[in-house]
């Protein structure tokens, strides 16, 4: 029975300790030199195996190893035993040690692979690391091996911790989202009762009580109706997170055209002139992107100044992303407010001046960030506003992150 440490899924310290104990393995962390170390060595030269083990033992590892000479042996051993590390010769008679990286990926295992080989040349070494090897040690420098093994193990542990933290974060976000959804959904019914019955009171008893009563009832009706709008907006906001990413190739020219068409009445009423430069095709959720453009254009119309309103939409490629811009010549925003306007329910004006609940920009922010972009505004009071947001160019965000 190998004295192994787990090589799969999570590198969280407690989990490692638990599962190794269950297998009767070492309880120390393997990335501390001096711990027990189980290696899978891909090598056809027994003498070299001995040299590697000796180097590791001299540095204080209680090292033991299985040896694989073919891809079949390698896969078989990997399925049966847990390993801390894989030491792979680059060139074997029957296969290339680098293919072990491919096997690990296929098996869904995260075990660091260190290429241990004769003269390999810098280019090949770099290529190995690009393909997913953790490190490279020339056979005539085996003295470096223990430190590189230790570092690879530590990296793996950190990767696991990082992944776990991200997972916890995602879960807690999801809980919050679920809470917002359930709360706003369940608030609707009782709220409907309050709204309709205060309205019925107002209708039925108008002028039958005193002036104050009419006023108080009006306050209650108004409050209930405003709360209904807030609850519906909160629902719309949490719905963004509940929909799947739905990323697909999306022609932004069509999206903007649709947004303007949907806003036709307000565009015509306000006399706004909406123009756009040729826009790119991006990988995005089309209907959510439509919502972003529609919200930004509607905002530009709502917060227009005394000059005839001109809205210009453009995009430029900067590095690996597209930067979109929706510029207007409206009332603008004081720079110190530039960030807070994206917060949920944040409003800079009274509803008498400009109606609305302050949900639009927070929905835009949520949509853009979910698709791997950022959103911000560049503006001065009275100088118009330019809302900008980024989207990854051509590659969906998931694929961008697939390589660590």
């Amino acid at each position, binding site marked *: 029975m190998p004295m192994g440490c787990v090589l799969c899924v999570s590198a969280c310290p407690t989990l490692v300790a638990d599962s190794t104990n269950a297998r009767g393995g070492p309880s120390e962390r393997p990335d501390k030199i001096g711990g027990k170390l189980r290696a899978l060595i891909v090598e056809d030269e027994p003498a070299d195996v001995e040299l590697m083990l000796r180097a590791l033992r001299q540095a204080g590892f209680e090292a033991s190893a299985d040896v694989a000479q073919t891809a079949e042996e390698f896969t078989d051993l990997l399925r049966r035993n847990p390993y801390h590390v894989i030491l792979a010769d680059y060139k074997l008679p029957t296969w290339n040690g680098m293919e072990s990286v491919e096997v690990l990926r296929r098996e869904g295992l995260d075990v660091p692979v260190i290429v241990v080989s004769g003269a390999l040349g810098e280019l090949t070494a770099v290529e190995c690391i690009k393909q997913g090897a953790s490190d490279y040690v020339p056979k005539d420098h085996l003295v470096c091996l223990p430190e590189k093994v230790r570092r690879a193990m530590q990296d793996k542990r950190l990767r696991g911790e990082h992944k776990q933290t991200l997972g916890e974060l995602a879960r807690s976000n999801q809980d919050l989202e679920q809470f917002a959804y359930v709360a706003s959904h369940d608030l*609707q019914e009782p709220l*409907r*009762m309050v709204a*309709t019955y205060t309205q*019925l009171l107002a209708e039925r008893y108008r002028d039958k009580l005193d002036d104050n009563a009419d006023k108080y009832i009006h306050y209650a009706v108004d409050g209930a109706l405003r709360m209904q709008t807030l609850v519906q907006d909160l629902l719309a906001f949490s719905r963004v997170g509940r929909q799947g990413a739905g990323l697909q190739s999306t022609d932004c020219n069509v999206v903007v055209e649709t947004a303007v068409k949907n806003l036709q009445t307000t565009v015509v009423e306000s006399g706004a002139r909406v123009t756009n430069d040729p826009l790119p095709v991006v990988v995005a959720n089309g209907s959510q992107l439509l919502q972003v453009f529609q919200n930004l254009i509607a905002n530009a119309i709502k917060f227009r100044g005394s000059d005839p309103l001109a809205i210009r939409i453009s995009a430029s490629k900067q590095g690996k992303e597209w930067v979109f811009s929706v510029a207007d010549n409206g009332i603008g925003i004081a720079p110190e407010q530039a960030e807070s306007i994206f917060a949920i329910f944040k409003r800079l004006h009274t509803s008498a001046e400009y109606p609305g609940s302050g949900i639009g920009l927070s929905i835009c922010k949520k949509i853009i960030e979910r698709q791997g972009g950022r959103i911000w505004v560049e503006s001065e009071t009275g100088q118009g506003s330019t809302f900008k947001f980024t989207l990854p160019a051509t590659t969906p965000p998931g694929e961008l992150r697939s390589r660590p």
Partner: protein
Amino acid sequence: MKTAPEVLLVDDNPADIDLMNEVLAKSKRHFHVNAVGDGAEAMSFLRRQGKHAEAPSPDLVVLDLNLPRKDGREVLSDLKTDPALAKIPVVIFTSSEASSDISRCYELGANCYLRKPGNLPDFMAVVQSMADFWLGFANLPQKEKR
């Protein structure tokens, strides 16, 4: 002589029953309103069981979805699969706007799906038009003698 149509309201919220009655009472049309508060009672009303042995046979059922004892979706399914009841038009009147509920109800044979509006003027308008349509303009099936 033609008798006044019978309407059965199925809703567990007395406030909604009252509100519907408020509107229906003002209608120029002539009809009787009956109301029950849960799905199981709705079925015994429709099947004239227990205390509902003398119940009239409804010409229109207005059904909420989230009901105690027997859910509105089950009531709808039972009603539409019972040959004696299947032809009674059923109007779903609920606060659910889930598209899954809407599709499911039509699949089960609902004749109309209406959402309860959140404010009084809209609520009144919806109930009024429902009464006008189903108890005025629409031709309803002849009731069988029971």
